[in-house]
């Protein structure tokens, strides 16, 4: 197999130059889809028979939770690629993914609390899913803190990649154990959704929003990785020429 493309794409400079033209398209598509999806979900989707309008927060809450989890795997897998093949670009993706994931987890927790108040009557309930999201939030914070603690970038990259991998093995275990803890101590007095089957007229905007969150995530991740490239390669000639051209 021809691996030339792989080596080319792992070069920060090549990556920076080739992804530049994608940005406007990606950004436009992401923003447009988010706007359409929000309007569809918040204004045009039918009212829920039991929860009224308050259920509409799922159009933010569910996609954010999806991406918060997927983001952890993006981070851990790019960390693993960086460790195994010693690719610097991959470490940059890992570093860029950590704050994004933390923010998404935070959004998911906050929207969950806002949704919980009218439906459950409490801002915070120690439900299995909420608790595991909180643990995930701490995992992200640990990654960011470890990344910041090292002054030497190479050590920061490698140690946080190991932490991400250890976390990746542990995330399913933590999820399962929290699930088990919940089912044991609080028999299902609360259910996240009364009827698990969601009507298509509510599901379509939700799927639309999930796709647009994925697009937005890709766009923001790309922007952050490109910034990281500029930051780390600031002493190289190509970055300096780029800056000189711009000013």
């Amino acid at each position, binding site marked *: 197999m021809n691996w030339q493309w792989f080596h080319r794409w792992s070069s920060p400079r090549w990556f920076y130059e080739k992804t530049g033209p994608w940005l406007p398209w990606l950004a436009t598509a992401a923003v447009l889809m988010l706007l359409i999806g929000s309007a569809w979900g918040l204004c045009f989707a039918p009212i829920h028979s039991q929860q009224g309008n308050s259920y509409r927060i799922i159009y933010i809450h569910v996609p954010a939770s999806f991406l918060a989890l997927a983001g952890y795997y993006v981070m851990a897998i790019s960390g693993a690629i960086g460790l195994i093949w010693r690719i610097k670009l991959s470490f940059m993706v890992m570093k860029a993914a950590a704050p994004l994931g933390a923010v998404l987890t935070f959004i998911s927790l906050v929207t969950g609390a806002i949704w919980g108040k009218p439906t459950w009557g409490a801002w915070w309930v120690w439900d299995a899913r909420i608790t595991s999201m909180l643990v995930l939030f701490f995992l992200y914070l640990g990654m960011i803190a470890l990344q910041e603690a090292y002054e030497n970038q190479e*050590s920061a990259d490698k140690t946080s990649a190991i932490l991400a991998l250890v976390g990746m*093995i542990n995330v399913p275990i933590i999820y399962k154990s929290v699930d088990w803890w919940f089912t044991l101590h609080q028999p299902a007095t609360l259910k996240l959704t009364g009827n698990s089957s969601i009507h298509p007229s509510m599901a379509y905007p939700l799927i639309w929003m999930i796709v647009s969150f994925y697009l937005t995530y890709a766009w923001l991740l790309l922007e952050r990785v490109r910034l990281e490239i500029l930051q780390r390669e600031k002493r190289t000639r190509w970055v300096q020429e780029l800056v000189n051209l711009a000013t």
Partner: protein
Amino acid sequence: MIQLPGLGTLLMASVKRDLLLAFRNRGDIANPAIFFLSVLVFVPLGISPEAAVLAPIAPGMIWILALLATLLSLDRLFKGDFEDGSLEQMAISGQPLYWLVMVKALVHWLITGLPLTLLAPLLGVMMALPDAGFGPLIASLLLGSGSLSLVGSIGAALTVALRRGGLLLSLIIMPLYVPVLIFGTGAVRNAIEGFAFSGQLAVLGAYFTGALLLAPLAAAGALRIGLNQ
């Protein structure tokens, strides 16, 4: 040509050395146990001295205190050897760092996990733990504290090169301790309520086995990075 010592000799020597070091600085052994006992005093003072209040929270409280005491002692796990250069010597000795981490975790367990487990019944009495809970409390702590030392060694290795890694160490290790805490307290609570608790002990055992196989691997990798810095 000089005959280098084999792995077995080296491991025996490092167990002896670490134990000797620990016994020379008695504080290292005593501090977690003293912390464990002294914080327990705050529980009746802060919550209530009534047995009816203390008994239901006893399993969780004892487990949380054991976890915190372990966490406090982790910071020094590799620090001393890192600072005086002996860790570097171990890394270039040609023997796998994996086994050296294993020995360090074992000694750490011997001087913190084991004393905490042995102290736990005393705390149980002070917290009015129901009689049925004592056996499972000791069993779960015995199994669980091994995992705490092993998983904790990863955190200690990741922060070894940092001057102030203590707080960071707690932050990155806490989420990984969640399953141990859940199943540890679960076993004791089940026993008190009269249910079977062998399942929880089995899960603790499984977590311990996984940690035994994988944690030294991650910790050894992290130590190498710390040494190369």
